[in-house]
């Protein structure tokens, strides 16, 4: 009860405080939703390379004539596979932090906080009006004005709604601004990784080794079976997909940087947004493209 009275008193003060517009909050929420699965993309490149390394390794192992060496090679392939997946998991965990940040933005910008409150305030108004009507019928005293309950309900709803929206806006502004430098550092690290000569060398090496190992397989074992030839072509196409994935992830990381920078601008300005900001739109399209490439890769397996 004390809280309600306090809210009523605060309502006049709160209405003067600025909160983000509905479209600004929706922009934060949309950004959070699109970024929520970003971590999957950087590690997917390493996973793809690991898969290629394993399969081309099997071609090579089949060319070894000594059973012990053959077995040792298979053991080494297995140990390399475990290592590769551990690395990919490490990358995944690092970028899940970005997902976590994005998901926390979705939660913070949720409209659920005030939805229940509005329903409750409306019910409160109806209950109050029935009471007033009953009072007016039963009492001989001066009649109370009709519709006062609805008005009171609106005040309760409005005050609570405004209070939460102002608090929500303050927090969104604070956190999005604080996170900008951190997002910039993380995405810059990611770009350094994606554009490094080491990664380029690893990809280019796998490309050459697919061919080299298959040639050794053809030279030292019977001619390729229909199945092995098909697998050789699949390996080549998976490598192309890994290259595409790398290019797309580079672009979307740059777009993510630009989109977050724009998000900071959006929450700092007092404005209504009539359409999606260009930088955000470009980022969303880029993410959709990566998803398609990843889905195509999964379909191949």
């Amino acid at each position, binding site marked *: 009860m004390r809280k309600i009275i306090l809210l009523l008193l605060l309502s006049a003060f709160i209405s003067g405080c600025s909160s983000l517009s509905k479209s600004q909050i929706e922009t934060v929420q949309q950004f959070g939703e699109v970024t929520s699965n970003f971590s999957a993309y950087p590690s997917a490149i390493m996973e793809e390379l690991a898969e290629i390394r394993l399969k081309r390794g099997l071609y090579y192992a089949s060319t070894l004539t000594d059973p012990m060496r053959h077995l040792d090679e298979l053991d080494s392939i297995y140990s390399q596979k475990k290592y590769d997946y551990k690395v990919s998991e490490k990358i995944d965990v690092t970028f899940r932090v970005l997902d976590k940040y994005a998901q926390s933005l979705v939660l913070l910008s949720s409209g659920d906080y005030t939805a229940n409150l509005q329903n*409750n305030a409306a019910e409160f108004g109806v209950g109050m009006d029935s009471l007033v009507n009953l009072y007016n019928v039963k009492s001989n005293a001066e009649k109370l004005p009709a519709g006062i309950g609805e008005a009171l309900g609106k005040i309760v709803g409005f005050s609570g709604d405004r209070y939460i929206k102002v608090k929500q806006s303050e927090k969104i502004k604070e956190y999005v601004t604080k996170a900008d430098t951190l997002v910039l550092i993380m995405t810059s690290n990611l770009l350094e990784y994606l554009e490094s000569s080491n990664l380029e060398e690893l990809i280019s090496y796998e490309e050459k080794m697919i061919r080299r190992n298959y040639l050794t397989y053809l030279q030292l074992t019977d001619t390729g079976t229909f199945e092995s030839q098909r697998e050789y072509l699949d390996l080549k196409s998976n490598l192309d997909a890994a290259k595409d994935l790398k290019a797309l992830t580079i672009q979307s990381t740059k777009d993510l940087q630009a989109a977050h920078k724009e998000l900071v601008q959006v929450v700092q300005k007092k404005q209504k947004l009539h359409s999606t900001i260009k930088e955000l739109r470009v980022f969303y399209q880029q993410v959709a493209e990566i998803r398609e490439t990843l889905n195509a890769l999964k379909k191949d397996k």
Partner: protein
Amino acid sequence: MNTEKIKTLEKLLDSIEIVENARSIEGLSPEDRVQLEKASVSLRNVERSIIRIKTNELVEKLTHDAQALDKLADEINRSAEKLAGVAKAIEKASNIVKAFVKIAAKAIGAGLI
């Protein structure tokens, strides 16, 4: 042959090409074949070592700086929980008033007020 001498995969590939091509030569003596196979396996072990070194270098750079954003995400989640708590408190307070209104209505109906 070790990773100290061959640092790039490109250089390693040259050695692999030579050994693998030699392995496919027809008419090799069984002894030569065994020696070439051993050399080939050694090269594959060097390959895995270089791949691990390069991958480690890549990942080390990446895993820095994630902690600060992780902490901020935790802080945001706590704020979201607090907001939900405030909304719940307001809802609770308005429920108490609603209950009070019901009691008052009953009391008026019964002529107690």
